[in-house]
């Protein structure tokens, strides 16, 4: 074992100790079990990987034991991101409607939250987007609203409805990217990390994370005591 290896091994052991502290008291034997296995792993890298997994497992068990996700407060908090997803789906159809009906004030207001901060750049896109694609966004938005309502009602169907909305959104996204005007509307003269990378990445991963949280809420039963 070289010096670098021993540092990795020490880090693995420290992580295992941390995992043991995080696990609920009722899981003491399991905490010890996970940690002891490190002594039987030859490779330092494998030991570190094992320890990282132990930490992950410990935090998951801790969260389940706290049962946070099954509280009314958690449901209320989670409704807001679901409502945000619904609002995001309605944005393009409402903007298009406002533009078509000459609702300039509303169009400008909605345009200010789009990349480029101006709805005029989307006029060719709004003209090019077919009606059925707008319909998909609206249906997806309605389904997100329905899942927010089911979440408040503590109804387990929330996950299925949310996934349906998400699937519809992702399908619409595929068709949307195939529209040439879309690529023109979202091409900018100068690159911008926040606009071009961070926000699209967050837009894509956020609903997936939400789906994971809703899955945990609906698939895990509550502790018996």
């Amino acid at each position, binding site marked *: 074992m070289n010096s670098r290896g021993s540092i990795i091994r020490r880090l693995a052991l420290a992580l295992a100790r941390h995992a043991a502290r995080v696990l609920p008291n*009722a*899981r003491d*034997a*399991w905490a*010890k*079990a*996970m940690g*002891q*296995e490190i*002594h*039987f*792993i030859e490779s330092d890298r494998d030991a570190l*990987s*094992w*320890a*990282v*997994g*132990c*930490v*992950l*497992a410990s935090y*998951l*068990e801790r969260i*389940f*034991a706290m049962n946070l996700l099954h509280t009314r407060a958690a449901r209320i908090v989670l409704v807001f991101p679901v409502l945000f997803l619904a609002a995001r789906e309605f944005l393009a159809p409402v903007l298009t409607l406002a533009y078509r009906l000459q609702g300039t004030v509303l169009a400008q207001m909605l345009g200010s939250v789009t990349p480029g901060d101006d709805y005029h750049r989307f006029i060719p896109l709004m003209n090019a987007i077919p009606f059925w694609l707008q319909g998909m966004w609206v249906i997806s938005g309605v389904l997100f609203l329905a899942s927010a309502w089911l979440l408040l009602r503590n109804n387990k169907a929330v996950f299925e409805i949310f996934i349906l909305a998400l699937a519809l959104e992702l399908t619409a996204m595929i068709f949307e990217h195939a529209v040439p005007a879309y690529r023109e509307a979202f091409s900018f003269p100068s690159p911008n990390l926040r606009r071009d990378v961070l926000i699209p990445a967050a837009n894509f991963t956020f609903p997936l994370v939400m789906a994971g949280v809703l899955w945990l809420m609906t*698939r*895990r*039963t509550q*502790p*018996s*005591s």
Partner: protein
Amino acid sequence: MVMARQPNVSRQTQALLIAMLEEPSHWRHGYDLSRQTALKSGTLYPILMRLSDQGLLESKWLEPERPGKPARHAYRLTPNGLAFARTLSVPAPQRAGRRKIIGASA
């Protein structure tokens, strides 16, 4: 009191149960199971805990085989766990009794 969760046979749980079915009378260690099933510890241990809570898995501490090494936690399937794992290793239409077996263990 430990957590009592609904049986949820994920692909990973299935892989673990089938791996433990290979030598059902042998006590198995976490790292060995991890290597056999390619499950990371972060996936493996929550499954082991859940199976134990459901009465499908039993565990005990084994004395170290080599001096200087700590005691090791070992696992094997209970009779209910064995019956349940066997239902997973047969084709789907023959799994009718699976829920009944789980119900008996809960």
